[in-house]
């Protein structure tokens, strides 16, 4: 069931509240601010230039203007970051978060139908999709309250990507989190078949397990992503290529090259562990089920630095 965008309550995220929690808007040069404000058409959604400056400052500080956290962004980097934001969509999202009726009408016209379609695609179910879309739409509308104040997730939209993509990602997050929550006994990761206990841990199998673990741990993150996506997540070459921004043929070549490299590396490690070449090649022919090896664990237990910031939603 859809929710008509009638008389939305003014969100508590007002310009005054934003301005009080952020650095002075004067950090943005007035000329640049005027340019960005004009480009965003924020005035259509009752957002003043000062309010828009506060929003930009908040987004810039949150992402440190696209540079590493330990680095102080220069003026050029700040300008580049701000100019690369999707200003019009950012203004619309902020207008909706502020409860501007015109902004909601615009949002409804542009994204309501898409929201439903995307939810159906994600859930692969008409019913579940519509339910998901309706729940998110109501949440976006500000029906969720926190500390007695209505809050809209749209306020967290930073404009670094498209608003459409942001909605897709939000829907996907909701769906995955719902799935994890409702399937707590069988989480997604636990769907993997547990490695059977090794009947006999021979020298060859032990050496092979160690060699595989070492080889996988030395892979780069993009290489691990390739292996995980293709062999564990069963994603298609097209999906992987779209994610990495390359052609699927390129993904195929990379996969072939990567598996070839892994085989050679494991052989080399087996030989380094004292096996002859023939024995090492025979060890590679061992049934994987005889190995006490969980590839998902190996591939996902790499040394990945956690994000400093939790997901905003």
């Amino acid at each position, binding site marked *: 069931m859809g929710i008509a965008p009638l008389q939305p309550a003014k969100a508590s995220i007002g310009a005054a509240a934003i301005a009080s929690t952020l650095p002075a808007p004067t950090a943005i040069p007035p000329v640049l601010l005027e340019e960005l404000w004009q480009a965003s058409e924020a005035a259509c959604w009752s957002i003043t230039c000062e309010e828009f400056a506060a929003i930009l400052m908040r987004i810039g500080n949150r992402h440190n203007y696209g540079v590493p956290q330990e680095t102080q962004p220069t003026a050029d980097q700040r300008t580049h970051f701000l100019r690369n934001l999707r200003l019009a969509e950012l203004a619309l999202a902020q207008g909706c978060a502020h409860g501007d009726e015109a902004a909601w009408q615009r949002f409804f016209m542009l994204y309501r139908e898409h929201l439903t379609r995307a939810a159906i*695609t994600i859930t692969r179910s008409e019913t579940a999709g519509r339910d998901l879309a309706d729940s998110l739409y109501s949440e976006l509308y500000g029906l969720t309250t926190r500390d007695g104040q209505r809050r809209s997730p749209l306020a967290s939209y930073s*404009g670094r*990507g498209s608003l459409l993509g942001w909605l897709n*990602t939000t829907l996907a997050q909701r769906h995955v989190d719902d799935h994890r929550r409702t399937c707590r006994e069988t989480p997604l990761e636990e769907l993997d078949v*547990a490695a059977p206990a090794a009947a006999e841990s021979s020298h060859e199998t032990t050496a092979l397990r160690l060699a595989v673990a070492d080889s996988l741990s030395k892979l780069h993150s993009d290489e691990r992503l390739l292996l995980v996506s293709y062999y564990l997540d069963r994603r298609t070459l097209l999906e992987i290529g779209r994610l990495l921004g390359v052609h699927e043929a390129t993904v195929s070549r990379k996969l072939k090259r990567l598996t070839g490299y892994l085989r050679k590396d494991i052989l080399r490690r087996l030989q380094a562990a004292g096996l002859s070449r023939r024995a090492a090649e025979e060890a590679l022919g061992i049934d994987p089920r005889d190995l006490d090896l969980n590839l998902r664990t190996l591939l996902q237990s790499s040394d990945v630095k956690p994000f400093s910031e939790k997901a*905003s*939603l």
Partner: protein
Amino acid sequence: MNRTPQYESHPDTDQLTAFVEHTLTDIEQRQTLAHIAGCARCREIIYLSQEAAAEDAGSAAQNLKPSGQLGWLKGWRFVWIAGPALALALFLTVSLLRWHDHGAAEPVTTARLSPETQIKAVVASPPPVPASAVDNQIAKQSTQSPAKLPAIPTKDMRAQAAPTTEMIEKRTPVSAMGGMHGMDMAGGMGYGQGAGVSAYASRGTFQNAAPVNAGTASSAAALPSAPAPVSQITGVIIPPQQAAVGEAKSSPVISQQNETVEVAAASAITDAQIVNARVTAKQLRATRWMAGGFKLPNGQLAVSTATALPRILAIDAAGNLFLSADAGAHWQSVPSQWTGHAIKLRLQGEPTHNAPVTDAATPDSVQKASAALTAAPSTPVFELVTNEGKLWSSTDGMTWAFR
């Protein structure tokens, strides 16, 4: 139970969206990629989001296309037509060219001059035609039935002959045939009788339903006032020599290219015959000698010519005299036997050879031309005029005597 690592923190929605859309900075992209490679949840979110975006893009593309159309394929649906169309165009072109060549050998125009003619024509001897065989045939015909004269040449059309012949060739095969037809007829008459009627008519001439007044172009001397009626017969070319005056008038309307043209000859030329000329493309090419401005073997242009087929005499600007005894097929230089500089050639009794061409002839001029035709000698005598005003004559073009 194997446990997979669970991250306490994940990239926020904005960052995941920007990663999918490749709008992150390089550092952020690598950082997010490293997280995604090890985080099943974020990977799942990203792939689901990507799937939704792709689905939406596909449906948006579908919505953009009107129903019943194939989108970008629509423009390629009829590409297959291009091949057959190209082949058809090629076939038509080749067929047209072949028809041109074959059609040139077909009889194209038949002109008939009847005694009760209404058109007076100025008849001149034909221009040199390399295709002597055709000329001979025509001459034979003209000899057998001299009462019918096919066309009306005027010597003043000589200057116009070249451009007109060129025009004939450039226009259409049919027009060229018309021109050749007239030339052959003239050749026949000139060879057989020393006087004849020649008309070089282009297709435009015949298609124009205007009366074919072949006497339109007359020499300035014989036909001082050469008015306009002839201008309607644009393509009519009348060879220069052996002026004969007649009057001819075409049948009322000649609307097609290949059809019989009935031309009535004046009483002065009632001895002419009906000539059916077969014109070939090779013969047409042979007229380039004329069309090219009477180019002589030494590369110079002929400034004056005199024709009594099969003999053609021509002089260039330097005064060199050339003789062709086979209607222009072969040329030989005639040694100078005169004093001074040869500037003009003509047949005896012909007032002038290279007078300016006029487009039309008045009835008076036609009458004068007719009179000249009556007075034309039966045996051609070439005359050569030098810059000193002296006159030299010759009957064979090789031996000259001072008069």
